[in-house]
């Protein structure tokens, strides 16, 4: 049984930031939603309430950085780049300010629909010069994110998981690394964020069906470890499948496509995720199924990819972990 960790960001940020008085916790009116309410209550002097004014928050953070502070910005991922994109570039990215942007609710991990779902954030962030882009995929990665992000000499965007987060890994996230979760020779399966947990649900069944899978988990989109991927790409026979909680254009799948074409490799690539579409409000389980990037969709896609039936039923998968949308570990239903 997978260990489920309750609010790993909450204690991680509190432990980390309370030891460095130069760190300021900025919140765009989403303090408990971003699990920094305990920090606010215990360390009010390091907390700056910015209200619902993201354009100002980005430039204000730039100013704080110019007076020697390290702002950690807390809000939903979408609110860090859609409205204040101009400020993100001029006040944070260009001058390489050491500002740590903590983006919550990555992809479809919220029932709040299009306005709240950051489905193109990785695509946008990774094309911004000077920006480092990270996505957490489990509780251990969330537990390492503050320290790792703060070691970066420049701005960082992090996709943060909140609430009940599974623990999949036992070693901390290291920026620039790629995790090898399983070795195999037929298929290269590359997943990120919550999709790694989904892939893990499918993997043993796939292996039982005779598919040899080389499974990688990507947490650092930029700087991306091209050498490692290149090496592993050469080791598989059939091709590559990527699965991401993001548009298939601009994120993980595109990154891999860029590497394949750059090096002139002849590898088939299938990209799972949101296929050039917005999503709507619903649960994670419903949305990943509806848009075709849950564990069973992965199996069906692999059948298509290799051109043979695998005779796996949905019930064969390990029981899906169902989250209670109104569980106590969330500030509100969003």
């Amino acid at each position: 049984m997978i260990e489920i960790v309750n609010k790993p960001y909450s204690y991680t940020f509190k432990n980390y930031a309370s030891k460095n008085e130069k760190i300021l916790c900025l919140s765009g009116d989403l303090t408990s939603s971003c699990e920094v309410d305990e920090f606010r209550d215990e360390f009010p002097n390091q907390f700056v309430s910015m209200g619902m004014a993201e354009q100002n928050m980005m430039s204000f953070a730039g100013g704080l950085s110019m007076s020697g502070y390290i702002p950690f910005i807390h809000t939903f991922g979408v609110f860090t780049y859609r409205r204040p994109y101009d400020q993100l570039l001029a006040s944070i990215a260009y001058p390489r300010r050491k500002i740590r942007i903590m983006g919550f609710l990555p992809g479809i991990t919220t029932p709040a629909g299009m306005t709240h779902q950051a489905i193109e954030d990785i695509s946008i962030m990774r094309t911004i010069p000077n920006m480092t882009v990270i996505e957490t995929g489990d509780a251990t990665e969330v537990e390492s994110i503050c320290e790792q992000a703060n070691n970066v000499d420049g701005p960082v965007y992090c996709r943060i998981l909140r609430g009940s987060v599974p623990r999949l890994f036992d070693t901390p996230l290291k920026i620039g690394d790629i995790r090898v979760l399983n070795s195999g020779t037929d298929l290269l399966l590359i997943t990120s964020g919550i999709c790694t947990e989904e892939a893990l649900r499918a993997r043993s069944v796939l292996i039982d069906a005779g598919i040899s899978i080389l499974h990688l988990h990507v947490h650092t989109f930029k700087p991306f470890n091209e050498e490692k991927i290149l090496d592993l790409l050469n080791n598989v026979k059939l091709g590559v499948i990527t699965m991401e909680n993001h548009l298939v254009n601009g994120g993980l799948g595109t990154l891999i496509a860029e590497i394949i074409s750059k090096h002139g490799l002849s590898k088939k690539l299938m990209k799972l995720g949101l296929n050039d579409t917005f999503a709507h409000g619903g649960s994670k389980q419903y949305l990943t199924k509806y848009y075709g990037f849950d564990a069973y969709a992965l199996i069906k896609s692999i059948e298509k990819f290799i051109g043979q039936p695998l005779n796996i039923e949905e019930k064969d998968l390990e029981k899906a972990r169902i989250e209670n949308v109104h569980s106590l570990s969330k500030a509100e239903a969003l």
Partner: protein
Amino acid sequence: MQNKLKSEEIALRIRRRVFEHCIKNNGAYLSQACSSAEQLAWLYNEALNIGDSIMPSIPENFSGVPSIDNKQYKTGAGYNGPVSNEFDRFIFAPAHYALVAYATLIEVGRMDPAGLLMFNKDGSSVEIIGAEHSPGMEMHNGTLGIGLSTAAGIAYGRKLNKEKGETCVFMSDGELQEGQIWEALQVSVYYKLDNLWAIIDVNEQQVDGAMSEVLDIGDVRKKINAFGAKCIEIDGHDIDAMRQAKKEPHKDQPLIILARTCPYKGMNYLKKRFPRLHYVRFKSEEERNKMNIEISKELGIEPIEY
């Protein structure tokens, strides 16, 4: 740092220098010099408590944007002196006023006149729209509206640090149309940033023409006061009025000085072009020649040779 020259004299010299540049280069952001010369002269000559420039008097060429491979990148803030607890920090918000800023730096002895020969030349840091690496600049303000927020962040940090120096922003009124300015005011008032002040060149001009015809923003003073800042309105060509305005007590409030100005002050001949004053480029050789003769006369100089 008090210059030997009076601020009024510096203002006249700023106008002359920008005008000379405009004639020689067949165009410039000229009306901005008319409206803001007194404010910039006063800021650098009297109001700002800043140290001597720590940058070369002839600016170095552009040496690459900030990147992981270019950590040596320097902003142009060093022309406003070093950063220290005591000194003020100055944010120059309307980046298209860059020529006026450079002319000011020259007239107060912070930049060599030769620096202006590099203006808008390929490979130069003396850019037409002030960049972070341009003399006197510390950030890209070409996207109007981010200056006040940035200054508010600096002021907040300086309060936490218990620093003595203030943070000042020079702004223009057109950018008040941007929503971010009002977000910045909200936050500055909420956090009682009385170590923050701004002087706004209210010339009522924007790219398309007079603000009243593009997007009238009404009674700015009333609005800023309603936001809870201390707002004072003065004649932006009256340096004494600036001195008085800066002395106004504003405990627990940011101070915003609205400097009402004329976009052809000191160059009345420019009025002919009103309200198309954002960028003055001559329509004909005849116009250039005529303007050279008429405005030179107003500025008390011989016509510019070009």
